[in-house]
């Protein structure tokens, strides 16, 4: 994409203004004063949960705990202390001894005083394992002027308006990206590996061993979440890697290596690696499987069930990710479900239609940078046997019920590589492609999936990253026993995901249709516009999961040394201290991720429209309301993270 000089000039000038306004706000005069705050710590929050001061103000805290021992570690400031009952606190201080080593001690104090000399948003976190939700016990110190946040608002508006303006004035192709590359051509070793019959078995095996050890650890290890390897590795390490690396780069790559349905598949095939090929097809496929060999009913061959199961799982999200036993239970239920379903149905019906994670992996894989596709569709068309779909001597029939010859989207391709092996024409490739390449949602089930993921990212940010103890208490029903608040929490979650936000989005799409000049199929337009939410959602989830790793990475190191929480110290890291990594930069990094979300959401959404609305003018008009919708949602999240 080549821009005109005048266009670049306008962008630069408006960008300068967008940066200048928040920077000038720093020079608005204000007075400094001293704040005396009695800070109460209680499972799992502080009161006040949000402290707002001006830069240069003196903050005098008088902390006390209303239940157990809590901690207080302020991001970006050298303030750390332990809070006990009756106003008894231990303030940490450091000094360098004669050998230059840092030494630490604690002083008993009743007041903690510091000067808020850095502006921005700073989170304070509990440092003492105080209960199930301990990792989410936080509060916020806002030191005005919060320039980073003002800059974000200004830049998000600038970016949205600039993109809209660009859609309007630019006539040539936009955001072209690179031409997709067949990795199997470029990397002969990769081709040799994926052609191996034992490939899937070998990539699943290590995961299989580790995952089932996690289940054992979840069942018999420490019941304290942040001391159990299952919780830490699944919900902190794996979740982050899945969201931030696997999904954007590899799409459903996780489905390729997922150990959960593996036993079911081995049982159903009665084989770990080999293909059992029948010359005479049975019910359309050249294989016979263990069990009843039914096909999944057509009526529910969509992801509605996944949407509902995901919401059901997320309703107990904070319990699931803090209680090892709940995680073990989830895995065992999935294991049982895959085994039972494999004995009734052919192919991977659990993964396709039920797996709560599979739903969003499919939707988000539309944007991912990897795809498995036919190299030349013409070759497929002429190939009568369709071995990829019905099974061949070299590979099983596609477990995901896909026909690569006509497959245009990543959604339901589990990247299992069977087709690469079964295709006698060697016509299947593994391609690297630009981010956000599949752009057509096929139905409202997928649109709802995108909306659910977007709202849940916000809801989790409120519940887990936010400073509000009462929301955590409501979500943490098994401990707090507060049924009514929990029901309100559930109603808000389900209402927002299934009614309010979809409703707002439908209105936005309707308005977009009007602005575009009418005559466009409403359903098609809505589904195309919903594509904006996919890159946006991916960046939302990265922005949500990143702080968990940056602040809690120490638990990863400690559970490696003491996987069952039994007091072992295998690598000497069992007592690695809680020491968040550059936590004062978290809001800024999150802001940058959200800006990237706007850019990729709007630009890819615009491309998605390109295939539906040919006239550039009405296409640009159709983008206005959805862009403002995206801007609004992004700013909701930015308010939570930065404001």
């Amino acid at each position, binding site marked *: 994409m080549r821009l005109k000089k005048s266009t670049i000039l306008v962008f630069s000038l408006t960008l300068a203004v967008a940066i200048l306004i928040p920077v000038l706000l720093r020079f608005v005069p204000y007075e400094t004063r001293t704040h005396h705050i009695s800070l109460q710590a209680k499972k799992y929050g502080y009161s006040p949960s949000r402290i707002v001061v001006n830069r240069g103000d003196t903050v005098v805290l008088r902390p006390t705990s209303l239940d157990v021992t809590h901690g207080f570690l302020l991001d970006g400031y050298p303030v750390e202390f332990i809070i*006990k009952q*009756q106003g*008894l606190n231990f303030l940490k*201080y450091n*000094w360098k*001894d004669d050998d230059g080593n840092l*030494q630490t*001690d604690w002083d008993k104090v*009743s007041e903690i005083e510091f000067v808020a000399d850095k502006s921005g948003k700073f989170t304070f976190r509990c440092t003492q394992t105080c209960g199930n939700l301990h990792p989410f016990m936080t509060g916020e110190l806002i030191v005005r002027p919060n320039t980073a946040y003002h800059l974000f608002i200004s830049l998000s508006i600038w970016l949205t308006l600039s993109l809209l303006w660009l859609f309007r004035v630019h006539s040539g192709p936009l955001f072209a990206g690179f031409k997709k590359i067949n990795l199997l051509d470029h990397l002969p070793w990769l081709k040799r590996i994926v052609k191996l019959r034992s490939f899937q078995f070998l990539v699943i095996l290590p995961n299989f061993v580790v995952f089932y050890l996690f289940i054992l650890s979840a069942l018999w290890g420490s019941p304290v979440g942040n001391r159990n390897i299952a919780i830490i590795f699944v919900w902190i390490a794996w979740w982050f890697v899945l969201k931030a690396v696997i999904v954007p780069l590899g799409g459903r790559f996780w489905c390729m290596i997922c150990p959960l349905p593996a036993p079911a598949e081995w049982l159903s095939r009665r084989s770990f690696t080999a293909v059992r090929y029948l010359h005479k097809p049975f019910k359309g496929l050249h294989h016979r499987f263990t069990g009843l060999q039914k096909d999944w009913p057509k009526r529910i061959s969509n992801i509605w069930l996944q949407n509902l199961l995901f919401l059901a799982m997320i309703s107990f999200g904070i319990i699931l990710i803090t209680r090892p036993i709940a995680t073990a239970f989830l895995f065992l239920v999935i294991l049982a479900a895959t085994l039972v379903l494999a004995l009734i149905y052919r192919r991977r019906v659990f993964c396709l239609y039920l797996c709560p994670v599979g739903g969003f992996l499919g939707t988000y894989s539309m944007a991912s940078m990897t795809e498995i596709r036919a190299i030349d569709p013409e070759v497929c068309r002429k190939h009568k046997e369709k071995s990829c779909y019905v099974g061949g001597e070299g590979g099983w029939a596609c477990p995901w019920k896909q026909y690569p010859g006509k497959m245009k989207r990543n959604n339901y391709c589990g990247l299992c590589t069977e087709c690469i092996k079964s295709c006698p024409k060697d016509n299947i490739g593994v391609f690297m492609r630009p981010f956000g390449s599949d752009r057509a949602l096929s139905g409202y089930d997928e649109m709802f999936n995108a909306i659910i993921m977007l709202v849940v990212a916000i809801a989790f940010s409120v519940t887990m990253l936010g400073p509000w103890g009462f929301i955590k208490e409501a979500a943490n029903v098994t401990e707090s026993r507060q049924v009514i608040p929990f029901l309100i929490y559930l109603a808000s979650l389900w209402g927002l995901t299934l009614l309010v936000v979809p409703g707002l989005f439908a209105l936005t799409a309707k308005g977009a249709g009007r602005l575009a000049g009418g005559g466009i199929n409403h359903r098609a337009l809505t589904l195309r516009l919903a594509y904006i939410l996919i890159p946006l959602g991916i960046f939302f989830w990265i922005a949500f999961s990143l702080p968990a790793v940056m602040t809690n990475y120490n638990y990863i190191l400690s559970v490696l040394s003491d996987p069952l929480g039994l007091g072992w110290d295998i690598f000497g890291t069992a007592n690695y201290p809680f020491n968040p990594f550059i936590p004062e930069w978290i809001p800024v990094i999150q802001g940058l991720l959200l800006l990237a979300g706007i850019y990729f959401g709007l630009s890819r959404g615009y491309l998605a429209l390109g295939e539906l609305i040919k006239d550039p003018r009405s296409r640009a008009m159709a983008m206005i309301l959805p862009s403002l919708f995206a801007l609004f949602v992004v700013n909701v999240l930015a308010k939570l993270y930065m404001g």
Partner: protein
Amino acid sequence: MSHQFLTISIAFLLLLSVPFQALAGSITGKISVKGLRSPANVLVYVTKAPGLSADLSNVKFTMDQKNLTFVPHILPVLVGSTVHFPNDDQVAHNVFSLSRAKKFNLGSYKPGTTKTVLFDKPGIVELRCDVHAEMSAYIMVMKNPYWAVSDAKGSFKIPDPVYLDQHGIKGVPDLPPGKYVIKTWHEKLKTAKKVVEVSGKGETAFRLDLKRGNPSVLYK
């Protein structure tokens, strides 16, 4: 009779002290520390100096208990003094000491009540509370009244007129001219030792840089 004698002798001593004061001096100084949040609560004392053979019956030393804390954290007293231990907290406390200079255990007692202990041997007495493990304080039983406890800025003055006045210790003259050994004590700092010459012309000032470590005993 004895009362009269005492009055006369005190008056005589006071009279004597007038010319002495002209020829005597005090020691002032500043402490800086490495390894503590503040240079406060460091005891600075003269190891050998004239004792005070005065009546201690009007002298009141108090070690208070408030908000799960002993106040003050460090309390120097003259040997032979009685210290009051009022419980001004909302909960019961049980003050005890296992130190060689004075072993005692006051038992658990309720808010609003006071107990007393006589300290008759010089040395360090570490106070603890049976109920609250994190409570601790020190009573330093001193041979002579030439001491000071540093303030938040690390400053001190020996003898400490404010401290002596507060506790009702009267008639402590300034130090006669001569060489004195000054030592420090804090539970988390290495004891420092310095020889100071008091010239008899007002104040002798010096600085002390203290480091983290274990202190030694008060008197060898």
